[in-house]
């Protein structure tokens, strides 16, 4: 008799010794579902229900504090004819695309720089993570002050370097405002990329590099043909993860520009907030938020499958 089956017999005997109810509760499936019932009910009530209720809201004309009337796809048609909606769509894609690119390249650079031998590495790593740790709203307020129209320290430094006074209007000019929110999003997200990719770099076996060096590969070739392929799964996961949360970003834009000037930095989340919370039109706001769903659903499914495969 194998050890495994012997164990089965022993635990079956142990189970038989228990009372019938206890034996039922001891079944793996019964125990599991009983254990998971409370958290699953919680998630169904506060994630599942709001999700479907949001879809229902998007099909209603629903002023705040009034009952809604069903209007079919009217809200979505309103969005299609709303030039601001298309501006918001473009903004969201530009913001997500450029910030993700910067974070990926910068994060890789940070990881490579950190993957060398030097003193006080743990201290440096802890300090570099600060932008990612500190509550976003609070660090964003510091940026708001750094880009202040009258007393910007960034402009003070630029002028000291020879830029004509008074320096750029970072949050007042539509293009520069977009540049600003992209840079600040990158500043905040880069440590997450860097530290995660660093952990990945440390799993690349050193003998791969040695073998490549013996075969005459230079620094760039080692990076291109060893480092990058080995890191690809981690880069994929980090990037997908960051794309999801950049695409649906709210806090940073809300604090810095409120979507302005003239909707130049308005994203889906801030626009939906404006319509629903400031304008009081819950139905229309829900339809704007749901416009994120196709892209988000695709990203979430891809990442979930990817995480599972790992």
């Amino acid at each position, binding site marked *: 008799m194998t050890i495994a089956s012997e164990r089965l017999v022993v635990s079956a005997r142990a189970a038989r010794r228990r009372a019938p109810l206890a034996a039922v509760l001891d079944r793996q499936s019964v125990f599991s579902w009983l254990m998971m019932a409370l958290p699953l009910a919680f998630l169904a009530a506060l994630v599942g229900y709001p999700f479907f209720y949001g879809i229902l809201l998007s099909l209603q004309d629903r002023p705040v504090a009034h009952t809604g009337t069903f209007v079919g796809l009217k809200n979505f048609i309103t969005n299609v004819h709303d030039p601001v909606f298309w501006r918001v769509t473009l903004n969201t894609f530009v913001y997500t695309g450029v910030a993700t690119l910067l974070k990926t390249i910068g994060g890789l650079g940070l990881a490579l720089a950190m993957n060398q031998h030097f003193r006080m590495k743990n201290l440096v790593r802890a300090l570099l993570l600060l932008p990612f740790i500190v509550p976003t709203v609070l660090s964003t307020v510091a940026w708001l002050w750094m880009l202040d129209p009258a*007393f910007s320290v960034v402009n003070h430094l630029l002028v000291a370097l020879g830029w004509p006074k008074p320096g750029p209007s970072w949050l007042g000019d539509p293009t520069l405002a977009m540049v600003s929110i992209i840079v600040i999003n990158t500043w905040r997200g880069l440590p997450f990329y860097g*530290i995660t990719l660093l952990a990945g770099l440390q799993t690349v076996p050193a003998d791969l590099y040695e073998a490549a060096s013996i075969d005459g590969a230079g620094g760039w070739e080692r990076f291109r043909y060893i480092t990058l392929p080995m890191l690809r799964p981690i880069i994929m996961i*980090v990037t997908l*993860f960051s794309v999801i949360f950049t695409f649906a970003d709210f806090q940073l834009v809300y604090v810095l520009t409120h979507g302005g000037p003239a909707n130049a930095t308005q994203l889906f989340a801030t626009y939906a907030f404006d319509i629903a919370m400031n304008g009081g039109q819950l139905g229309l706001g829900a339809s704007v*938020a749901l416009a994120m769903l196709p892209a*988000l659903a695709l990203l979430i499914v891809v990442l979930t499958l990817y995480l*599972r495969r790992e």
Partner: protein
Amino acid sequence: MVVSGQGRLRQAIRVWLPIGFFLVVALFPFYWMAITSIKPNSELYNKNVMPLIVHAPTLKHYVDLLTKSSFLLWTWNTMLVAVVATAISLILGTMLAYPLARMRFAGSSLIAMTIAAIYLVPQPLLFIPLADVINHLHLGNTLTSVILTYPTMLVPFCAWLLLGYFKTVPKELEEAARIDGASRLQTMWTIFLPLCVPGFISAGIFAFTLSQNEFLYALIFLTKSSVRTVPVGVIAELIRGDVFYWGQLMAGALLGSIPVAIIYSFFVEHYVAGLTAGSVKA
């Protein structure tokens, strides 16, 4: 191997030039926060004073912040909400993760994937219907509203992180306990959970910092000063439209960041382990 002086210098440049650049960029906003908070207004709003250093430091902004605004109350609210939401999320997350890590039952992989997917759903997708739900429950302007809604992001997150941790714990002790006749609940409670303290610390720190960081739900559900959390209080009440508020605002931002920074500095190893757990195969 003998390294020549010049080689060592070149090595130092190769390390510290990029690292120094990243450090300056990462830390300058915090330096600016700190220095602004101790400058008198006469320096803050004078363009002819060199702004990078303080000439006559003062604690006036801190005194004003603590005596003239509800900052201390907001800090208390933030802590209370973060601690309770984290505790709830660890408990509910464990109740999901243990069966998924240890039991074999139909539907387990579907549940695991659903939890991962829920974790990835960003708040802006749900905040409008959720605001209506909170209104219907008459929970607006109560801390209960955020204590209930923060776990919607934290439970899937803790479950996912703990699931990964639980799978690394050897099964032998549990199997031995089972053979000795312990029920599944006893085995989980007395044998398994005590082995998982490091996993709980990682998940707990993450959940705590995420709670401290949360803004959107708090902004919508908490509109009275007495129930606000630090991020919402700072944004809604310290930005007042006139120009002479930056000192207080930066003092508030700095003080609001300190609890998270302290906790994180004690547990940075756990934090990094948690950060990389999802993306690096052990």
